[in-house]
């Protein structure tokens, strides 16, 4: 009959179906999402008996002994079977065995090597004159993405909104867009190079083609999903077609439109590599391609990781900005308060003459 203790801890189920996690559990899980793959990577890279399919030859033994595997040399990564074969040959000849350690393939870099490369890739001059530094390649890539995405938004958003608002417009544009959107953007690569020549323009064009057609359809869909009763309400309040579009449809879809743009920006990044490899190679893709040719795989991973980091950071930053931009969804009123504070600091408007204001009609 004892009443439950008020501070008794409720058991929180971590794997309950469709129920939210506690703040603490959620934060921990987010960290784990990165830490678990990282630990797996460390395990594969540093623990000799996990994977390590090759042998890094440290001392090949007497190379004068002839045999099938006599080609072993110091610093080579060879299959275990080759290494064992050479040792059999050496033992048969009465010589000391070759020395080697278990190793991973050259393309599999350890975390510390990639971490070092993340720094050194920025500070190392390119191997050939005229090649770009990593930060220059990075800026080139970002510029291509942003230009392609901006052009796509400049045309895609208005077309999408019109399509979502006017059934006629949607019928006039969407069937054709649907048709084009199934053509993979890269097939226009050669064409774009012919039209725009080498340089940046054909690459921007590929990003544009890759995102624009999807954008129109996505935006049209978002526009259509606006609650139609809001439009009815606005009409009974006297809004005309123009006012419906600018005062109801646009503000009504703004948060969803913003979310769409976040997703589509990620989409634009996926077209980056294709765009950069057509015509004259450029940007991060050119850097990665080049480093791969020099077998600097640490730099390859560094460049790939940078793309991931940029993507993650922009998305998180955009999500954070959204909280301030759309207070009616997030409940974050910081910007609203700032605006009100600014308005209050302006001179107060003169109050109108006092009279009974609540009159309707003329009687």
């Amino acid at each position, binding site marked *: 009959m004892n009443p439950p203790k008020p501070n008794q801890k409720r058991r929180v189920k971590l794997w309950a179906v469709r129920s939210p996690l506690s703040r603490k559990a959620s934060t921990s899980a987010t960290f784990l999402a990165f830490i678990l793959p990282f630990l797996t990577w460390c395990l594969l890279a540093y623990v000799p008996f996990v994977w390590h399919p090759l042998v890094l030859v440290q001392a090949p033994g007497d190379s004068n002994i002839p045999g099938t595997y006599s080609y072993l040399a110091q610093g080579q990564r060879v299959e275990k079977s080759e290494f064992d074969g050479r040792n059999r040959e050496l033992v048969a000849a009465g010589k000391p065995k070759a020395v080697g350690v278990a190793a991973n393939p050259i393309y599999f870099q350890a975390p510390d090597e990639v971490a070092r490369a993340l720094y050194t890739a920025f500070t190392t001059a390119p191997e050939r004159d005229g090649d770009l530094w990593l930060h220059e390649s990075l800026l080139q890539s970002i510029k291509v993405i942003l230009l392609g995405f901006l052009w796509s938004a400049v045309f895609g958003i208005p077309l999408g909104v019109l399509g979502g608002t006017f059934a006629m417009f949607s019928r006039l544009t969407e069937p054709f867009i649907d048709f084009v959107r199934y053509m993979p953007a890269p097939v226009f690569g050669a064409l774009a190079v012919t039209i725009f020549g080498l340089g940046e323009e054909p690459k921007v064009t590929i990003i544009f083609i890759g995102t624009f057609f999807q954008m129109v359809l996505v935006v049209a869909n978002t526009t259509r999903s606006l*609650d139609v*009763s*809001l439009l*009815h*309400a*606005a*009409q*009974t*309040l*006297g*809004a*005309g077609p123009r*006012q419906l579009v600018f*005062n*109801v449809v646009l*503000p*009504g879809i*703004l948060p969803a439109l913003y979310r769409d743009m976040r997703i589509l920006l990620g989409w634009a990044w996926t077209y980056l590599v294709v765009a950069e490899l057509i015509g004259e190679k450029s940007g991060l893709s050119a850097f990665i391609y080049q480093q791969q040719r020099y077998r600097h795989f640490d730099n390859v991973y560094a460049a790939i990781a940078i793309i991931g980091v940029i993507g993650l950071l922009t998305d998180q930053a955009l999500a954070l900005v959204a909280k301030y931009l*759309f*207070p*009616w*969804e997030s*409940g974050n009123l910081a910007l*609203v308060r700032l605006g*009100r504070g600014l308005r209050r600091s302006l001179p107060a*408007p003169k*109050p*109108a003459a006092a009279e009974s*204001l*609540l*009159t*309707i*009609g003329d*009687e």
Partner: protein
Amino acid sequence: MSHAEPLSLPSYLDQPPEVVAHLAELYRRRTVMRIDGLSKLFGSGAEEVVALRDISFDVHHREFISVIGPSGCGKSTLIRILAGLDYPTAGQVLVDGLPVEGPGADRGMVFQGYTLFPWLTVKQNVLFGPSMKGTPKLRAEEKALEWLRLVNLSDFADAYPSQLSGGMKQRVAIARALANQPRILLMDEPFGALDAQTRASMQAHLLRICGQVNITILFITHDLDEAVYLSDRIVVLGARPGRIMEIIEVPVSRPRSPNQFLSGSFLSTKRRLEELIHHVEISAKPESEMMAEVYG
């Protein structure tokens, strides 16, 4: 206690003198909205469904008129036509003698789903109508606050709709519609989504507002108590096809108060409504026929 005898009620047609006087005065007033021979068909040929048939009645200035009926009687179609959001197949709607061609600011509307603009604050929602007309901002803003005071929400002028309860949202919707100074306020089951307590308090709010503001209201509901409690007259619709069964002049005197819920005139009106609506619901279609319709 036993109730062997059926409760004896006065006839719903017996109107006390003050109600007779009130109604006579009401009929002398100008007609704000005339609904003239309205019919609405959906589909065509064998698929044709008559949603509304020959609906005619007048709404007088400052009258509170309710439309009630069983589900499927076309109440919502009717109010959508009155608002101009849908078109009749035959007949017309006149506001101050002019035919309705589409939605307009002269007919304000309050919907069951609150339909507040979520991106605007409460005050900005109320300002929406006036700003569509290009009313100078300063004066409109002052008025908006006045309307919010009328619905007891002046403290929430800067809140967003998502921060309000259902009843508060609906009060904002009423203020927003009134701020536009419509000739008539159309209310489509406005309190249908609210819980019983909130509903009762909203009814009280609405009666108070009607006392303070010159407003004509056409109110759709399926709640019999609500219809009797609020209305001067009640238009009872029957289902399939939607048609007027009777227009009841409510014999309950004004001002209204919850005490009247148990008065003889209130109960007799309610019983009459029940009779009309139940009768309609049962005889509309025999169950076997409906089964046949559903299962082919």
